[in-house]
């Protein structure tokens, strides 16, 4: 589009397109907030489901060497498949819906978590487990009172990585229209390269990841008071 200014032809491209524009955020606050909310919901559901399945798999995997090799091998293969291809594999089953994104994100977080959960469980010294069994702990007590507290730092380290990764990865959900803040990034690109929107989406994503990481780090401090005393 062009328009006349005093006889000269000025291209509309010359319109200002700043990288940072606070008025973008204030003018579109509701949109940004709604997308951030979708982003958080996507992350919480994906990491939550992923953690539940990963814990189950880790508990099964540690029972035999063969099983743990099989599960870790599968997880490496899943991890190697690019997110866009993963969503493409899932889409024929779930359609262009938010379920496609959630299934994909669950798979990736699961893969990260199962390794950390397994490493955490295996880090519990055999003597500790044996003395707990000798003291008459049943398997449930053994897990809840002995193994879980000892493996907790490894569990939370895994949760932190999975959460931060999931927040970054959720943006790719834009391919089926449910990318949370990714909608801002690609939306800005498609809206004639609207930089303020792209950068706002990016900054919001990074902030979300940092806040989530800090919250989990805080949770670890609260849940493992004994490790604080020793350091």
């Amino acid at each position: 589009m062009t328009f006349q200014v005093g006889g000269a032809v000025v291209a509309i491209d010359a319109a200002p397109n700043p990288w940072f524009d606070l008025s973008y955020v204030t003018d579109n606050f509701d949109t940004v907030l709604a997308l951030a909310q979708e982003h958080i919901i996507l992350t919480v559901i994906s990491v939550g489901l992923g953690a539940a399945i990963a814990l189950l798999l880790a508990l099964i995997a540690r029972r035999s060497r063969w099983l743990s090799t099989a599960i870790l091998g599968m997880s490496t293969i899943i991890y190697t498949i690019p997110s866009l291809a993963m969503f493409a594999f899932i889409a024929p089953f779930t359609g262009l819906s938010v379920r496609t994104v959630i299934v994909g994100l669950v798979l990736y977080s699961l893969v990260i978590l199962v390794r950390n959960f397994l490493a955490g469980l295996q880090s519990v010294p055999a003597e500790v487990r044996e003395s707990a069994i000798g003291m008459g702990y049943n398997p449930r007590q053994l897990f809840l009172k002995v193994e879980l507290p000892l493996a907790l730092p490894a569990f939370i380290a895994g949760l932190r990585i999975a959460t931060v990764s999931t927040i970054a990865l959720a943006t790719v959900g834009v391919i089926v229209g449910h990318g949370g803040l990714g909608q801002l990034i690609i939306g800005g690109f498609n809206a004639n390269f609207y930089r303020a929107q792209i950068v706002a989406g990016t900054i919001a994503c990074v902030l979300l990841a940092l806040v989530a990481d800090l919250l989990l780090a805080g949770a670890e401090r609260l849940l493992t008071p004994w490790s604080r005393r020793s350091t």
Partner: protein
Amino acid sequence: MVKAIYVIWSDAFAYLNDPLNWTRRNGILELLGQHLYISGMAVLLALLVALPVAVYLGHTGRGGAFTVAVSNVSRAIPTLALLTIFAVVPGLGFTDWATILALAIFAIPPILSNTYVGFRGVDRDVKEAAIAMGMSPLQVIFKAELPLAMPLLMTGVRTAGVQVVATTTLAALVGGGGLGDIINLGFGQQNYGVLLAGAFLVAALSLLTEFVLVALSWLVTPGQKRLPWQKTGSSRTPDDQGLATPERSDPALLANPL
């Protein structure tokens, strides 16, 4: 449902079986070439930046916190965001270099941290023996430390390489080309056959990259050879510094999600 899935799969194979889909302009072969060129340049660029820094830091034993911070921060930045930002930089946008630069930035942390850990982990006695034998500082680095750090260095290169090949797919969302174009087209037209065909190609290329780089590490690693999935002794537990998720056999750092 079963019938619909069957139709989609046969559509995908029909797409892959048509030679024209491979050889035409913007066909699979052209997109593959573009994909490999972008990925290769990105890894090369990352190696040029990361290796000297990692070797220096690891050799002197300084900057551990720095490498951990770099990989933690990079994990929080969505690849898609950086790809998009680079695609709208004037002069850089809509060239292959926008994609290459964005991906190179994400390829630096795995190479940097693994190489750093590899060099830092070299036994002090080995270094002192090398110096006592009259080696110059450069000889110590290349003849004593490098061979010992090689397995971890290659783990970093492998992680970065697979990650770059995988994330090059995302460039299609911002007009960057590569095999992701086929998936993007499939989603755009809601053509699940094309979609699945693209997903197959991209997944196959990523897995192939993984195998090729495993073979490469096997070739360039001196001494006792072992494959990444072979177990060694004890398992490491992830520590809370963000150095986490060991690939069982070596203290590798897990890359960004792809």
